[in-house]
Structure formats: C-alpha cells, structure tokens
C-alpha cells in the first residue's frame, strides 16, 4: 500500500543535496508520497532503496496492455472491491477464440464478426476487443493463422499455446503488435518468460489452481516481470468466482503481489453452450475479470454484454451525459411537439425510449446540465430559464417547427412563467413529471391542439 512521506524519507540518502530540484530529502519524500515527483530524479538513491520504493509505490493490481495504438486494450489497475468505493477502472476486455484446427469458412466468418459487430451508444463505439488464437498442432499452422488474423484486424491478439517453440513461431509474426502470451505454466515458465522478455510482451500465467498460479507468478514477479495476467485454472463458474474475489481481495487488502495482476477467464471452457458462456461473461464483468474469452460473437448477445460492461464500469461519481442538441424521435415535422430536458444520459434514455414507444413524432431538445437530472439541475442552477432560453434560441429549433410551444418537465413547473419571459413569443407548457407519463401526454396534447391545459 502507499507509503507515507516519512517512510520514504527513511530510505533516501538524507543528504539534502538538492540535486533532485527539491531543497531537502524530507520535502522530496513528501512530494513522492503525493505522487508529485519521480524517484528517478534523485541521482543518489541506492538501487536497493529504489527497488523497495518502486515496489511499494506500485499499484496493488498492476495493469497490462495488449495491442497497439487506438486498439490497445488496458486491463487491471483496479483499486476497489465495490464500485461505489471509487470506481472500476479498466473494463473487462472481451475476446473471441479462433483455433488453428477450424476450417477456413469458420475462421473467415468469425473474423468478419470481430471486425463488423459494433454498436454506438451515447457517442461511444462498443465492440469486442481481442482475438485469442489457439494452437492445436504444429507451429506452421499456428503462425499461418496468426498471420491471417493480424492482416484482417488491428485488434489485440492473445497467442494461446503452452509449447514455447510454437509460441515463438507465433511471436515471430506478431511480436511487434504486443500480443498477450498465454501461457506460462509451472512446467514452461522459464522459457515463456524469456519469450516475453525478448519480445517485450505481456505474459499470462495458467495454474492448475490459484495456489499454483500464485507460485508461478511469484517466480516471475521476483524476476522483475510486471505485465502479467492470471488464469487460476478454474473452469467452473463457482470456482472462478471464488478465485476472482479472493485474488482481488488479497491484492487490495494484503498487497499480495503474486496475485496483484489482472485476470483472464476462458468462458468457452466453462460451457460449450454459447448462451451460457454469455451468462458466465455477464457474471464476470460484474465480478472482476480482466479478460473473458468467448467462442462466438453474435450481435444479439454481445450488445447486452457490452452495455452491462458500460454500466458497471461507469464512474459512479460522474454521471454519463449525452451531447447538447436537438434529437429527432419518430421523424418529427414542423407540427411536432418540442420537449426540453437535461443531458443526464439516463434522463435522455428513458425519455427518448418512452417517446419512441408512443410513436408520436417529437423533437427533444437536450440542454447541457452537466449530467444532472431535472430536479437536481434546476436546484444547481444548471436547468433554469437564464440558460435554457439561450440554448433553445441558439439550437435553431425555431426554424424546424411552425409553432411556438415548448414542453418542460413537470418537476420544474415553477420556471414556466420566467421561461416564457425569456423566450419572447413562445408559450411554455408544463408536461408530466415522470417520463412514463409522457406517451399519454403526447397522445392527448399537440402544439396545434386546444387541450393545452388538459394535462398539467
């Protein structure tokens, strides 16, 4: 766990030479403790102190990066057991398994799935992250598939073989793309470690059980390896859950280094049934997996998993937002009603889903309220006439409709008079409080209709 300034000071040379740019060793130690300085700037610190300090200042769960550039996937660096304590940092990466004994048709179809299946949600593109390539027989067959995959996609690669010679053949093809080497075992770890070192790639460890994985990990940790990924060997969901919880707890609560790494789970080995693999993945997105490997990607089942991942890994302290602007629902026309609300993503999602369900063509104007919901935004002065009116004028909604009626959420009924003053010749109509009542409202009220007062 993090050392205090005084703990660090004890390991410094205590000469107050100032070569680091800070006048005293104590002041430098304080800066280190706060993460405002780098130990490397002290030219006199002993190697021993350096390694001790580096080790203790390292995050309790290290990160690993697979792949390059915009497709690089970072996992690990988690700091809490429950998301409300802070947040979950790096979302579970989803990988598709290819095997060199599959026929060309199957491989081509799977490659197409990994590259084509993607979803857009609140301005983010969601898709699977990695391709795992499994060797089943010889090096030539394996490296041919690795080559094919690496040409077909820029996504990160996991090379799956416990035979160092076959692994070497695969690495020859893609080492420069920083693949994850899977796996070092109790029997081959020295050779696999050499390959990881020589090619500067992250290395996964596979144990027969958590104890063995920790043993191998301890050896590699002692040898200075930092980018490790752990497979505890469990292949039943009950055992996997226990290993995930126990590893994270040991790493976070006891700073147990051998298990202070992200994890990988092969859902495809838990069940042959694709729908069941999906449920396993769903469980492990919530419960701590760094990577989950699946045998199939299907848009209909991948989308829900992607959204679960997005939900679970959202920062609980920072609401998700949608972009300010005009949103068209059900192809609105000049006669369609105009609603205004805040840009809290949940407000937007629920309102737009209700409006969509009503099938009434509608304009929804989303005002940037810094992600606050209607009532909170109003209370914080982020959804008040002084900023709603300028937004609406600037938005150009007046040019899109042939009426001047604006519907506001029922929760801010009190602003209707003032908003009318700010909006010039527009009249403001108070809509329902709850999104669930909006469809009913839209069915009984229209900008042209006489029933303006019918539903307040």
């Amino acid at each position, binding site marked *: 766990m993090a050392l205090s300034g005084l703990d660090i000071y004890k390991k410094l040379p205590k000469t107050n030479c100032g070569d680091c740019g800070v006048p005293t060793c104590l002041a430098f130690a304080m800066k280190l403790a706060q993460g405002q300085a780098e130990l490397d700037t002290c030219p006199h610190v002993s190697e021993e102190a350096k390694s001790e300090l580096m080790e203790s200042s390292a995050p309790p769960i290290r990160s690993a990066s697979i792949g390059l550039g915009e497709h690089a996937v970072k996992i690990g660096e988690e700091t809490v057991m*429950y*998301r*409300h304590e802070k947040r979950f940092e790096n979302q579970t990466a989803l990988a598709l398994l290819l095997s060199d004994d599959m026929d060309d048709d199957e491989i081509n179809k799977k490659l197409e799935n990994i590259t084509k*299946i*993607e*979803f857009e*949600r609140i301005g983010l593109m969601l898709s699977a992250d990695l391709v795992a390539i499994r060797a089943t027989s010889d090096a030539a067959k394996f490296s041919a598939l690795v080559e094919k995959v690496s040409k077909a996609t820029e996504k990160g690669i996991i090379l799956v073989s416990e035979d160092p010679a076959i692994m070497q053949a695969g690495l020859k093809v893609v080492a420069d793309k920083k693949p994850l080497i899977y796996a070092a075992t109790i029997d081959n770890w020295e050779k696999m470690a050499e390959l990881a070192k020589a090619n500067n790639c992250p290395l996964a460890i596979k144990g027969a059980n*958590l*104890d063995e994985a*920790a*043993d191998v990990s301890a050896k590699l940790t002692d040898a200075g390896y930092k980018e490790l990924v752990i497979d505890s060997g469990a292949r*039943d*969901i*009950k055992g996997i*859950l*226990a290993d995930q*919880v*126990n590893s994270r*707890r*040991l790493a976070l*609560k*006891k700073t*147990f280094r*051998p*298990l202070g790494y992200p994890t990988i789970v092969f859902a495809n080995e838990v069940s042959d049934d694709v*729908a*069941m693999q*999906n*449920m*396993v993945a*769903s*469980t492990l997105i*919530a*419960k701590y997996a760094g990577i989950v490997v699946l045998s199939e990607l*299907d*848009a*209909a*089942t*991948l*989308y*829900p*998993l992607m*959204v*679960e991942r*997005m*939900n*679970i890994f*959202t920062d*609980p302290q920072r609401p998700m937002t949608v972009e300010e602007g005009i949103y068209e629902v059900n192809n609105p026309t000049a006669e369609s009603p105009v609603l205004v609300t805040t840009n809290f993503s*949940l407000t937007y*999602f*629920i309102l737009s*889903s209700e409006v*969509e*369900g009503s099938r009434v063509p509608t304009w929804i104007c989303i005002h940037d309220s810094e992600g606050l919901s209607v009532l909170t935004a109003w209370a914080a002065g982020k959804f008040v006439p002084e900023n709603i009116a300028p937004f609406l004028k600037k938005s150009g909604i007046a040019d899109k409709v042939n009426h001047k009626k604006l519907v506001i959420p029922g929760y801010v009924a009190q602003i209707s008079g003032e908003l009318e003053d700010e909006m010039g010749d527009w009249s403001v109509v108070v809509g329902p409080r709850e999104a669930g*009542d909006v469809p*009913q409202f839209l069915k009984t009220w229209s900008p042209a209709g006489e029933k303006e007062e019918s539903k307040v």
Partner: protein
Amino acid sequence: MPVETVKETYTGKVREVVLGSGEGEVKVGGQTTMPFYTFEGDMPNKPKIAMEVYDETEEWSDWAKEPFADVIDDPPSWAKKCQDTYKTDMVTLQLRSTDPNGSNTSADDAAETTKKVLDAIDIPLIVMGSGNIEKDQEVLKKVAEVAHGKNIAIGPAQEDNYKAIAAAAMAYNHKVIAQSPVDINIAKQLNILITQLGVSADNIIMDPTTGALGYGLEYTYTIMERLRLAALQQNDDMTNMPIICDLGLETWKTKEAKVGVDEEPTWGDPKTRAITWEAVTANSLMMAGADILVMRHPEAIKLVRNIIDSLS
C-alpha cells in the same frame, strides 16, 4: 504453496422471509454472505424466480407474447402455465390494467383476478399494483382481503402510500414490498416507517426500483450492494430484508427488447436480443444481491436458472 485467502467476516444476516402457505411455502433470503460467496458464508436459499402474469399486455412485442399465446387473455391459466410448464418458484401478478392513466379497471376486478389466480396455483403469489399512489391503496387493500390466508406479497408500498398498503398487508397477514426510488436512505427510512406501523421487519421485502440494463442498471446495482453490505457488515437490521427486483417490466419496455431488424439491422436477432437483455439484467442484479427476480420470458429464465445452479 497454498495461498492464504482473506475471509470476510460478516456479522449480519439477511432476514429469511417465507411466502405462500402450506405445501407451497417458499423461503427467500437468509444468507450470511455476499451473493454466491459460498466460500465464506451460507446461502441457504437460492435467488427465486417470480414469473410475471399480466392482466393486460398492451404493446407487447411478438416475441414477448409468443410463449403465452394460448393463455395471454386469461391470468389464471397463464399463472398455471408458469407453475406447471415453466416451473417458476412464484408468480407475480402485474395489475397494469388498474392504472388510472390506462384502462383504469376497478379494485374489485383486480381482487377477482387475484382470487382466480390464487385458485389456479399452489406456489406463492406476489401482486404488484400499477404504481399509481392513490389507486394502489384501494386496489391492494381489496387484493389483500381476498388473499387472506395465502401469505402473498403486495406492493409497491411507496413513501406516499405505504401506510394504507402496509396496513392492508398486516390486517390480512401478507408481506409488504417497500419500494424506494433508487435511494439507500429512503429504503432504510421506509423500512423503519413500516415497522413503526406495527409490521414485523420479517414481513418486509425491499424493492430498490429496478433500472434495466442500459437504463440505470448501475444505480440499482450499487444501491443493492450497499444495502446488502450494510446488512452483512454493519448488521443493520433495517436494511437486511430480502430484495426483490421487478425487472421484467423494465427490461421489456426498453427499445432494445422491442425493435425489430428493420429498425436496427446491426443489433442481431430481436428475440435473442430481448431474451439476453432480460437475462443479463437479471444476472447482474443477482450478483448485487437480488433474492427475488420478477421475470417474463421462459428462455431468459432458463438461462438465469442455469447460472444460479452453477453458482450454487
């Protein structure tokens, strides 16, 4: 070398609540650990599925109606099918038609439907009103009366109508479902208020208000985790009631469970998508502490059952 794992010591326990009567009794809750952490505590009762039966199915997608095509206009037959064909643990009767902003059917009609459903099944029944503050008081009072002796659960009892609903539950020996708006403080406060009316804390089930996958799931998830941690770690006896998640309704009204291939060609097969949407919502909430999952589709339920069995 064996790894020495750190066991969490929980001082509290989730209350065990019994629903139903006679041979059909079902227990929920009772665990001394976080969901499925059986390596450090007990989970005497697995999460239970309470399959939905509606008195109205306006605007359901074809793939939602499909399994119930033969019973969809008859709640008692529907409930029986859930019990006999789909082997559900319990049935949830959703009285949507009572909504004053919808069909506005009478409290007497609702009571009649409840009675018939009760006669058709042996397993426990949960009855949910439309969520309308005023109407639910009237409806659930009548429902409680006709269900006397059956030990059902009625709800949602909210901050603004809990008195009438809890009183009805108490008068006829039922359980009350206390619904809070995704707020841990209100959840606890509501439990306190209901017990102050004289309802035993062992007769309360908490409904934290369910956000479906993509529609606030993470808020419900975290409120549930915090409620459960308060119960287990701090031994808080006003947050240790079993949790119900009314997720069928919330899941199936999302766009993702409803739209076809024509509207969203890249989202895959709509039926599979909708079923997975429900299954993943249920599974996530279960990992946060749900004891009763109110669900709709038999195939989603099958998936959730499988994972429950594998995790237990």
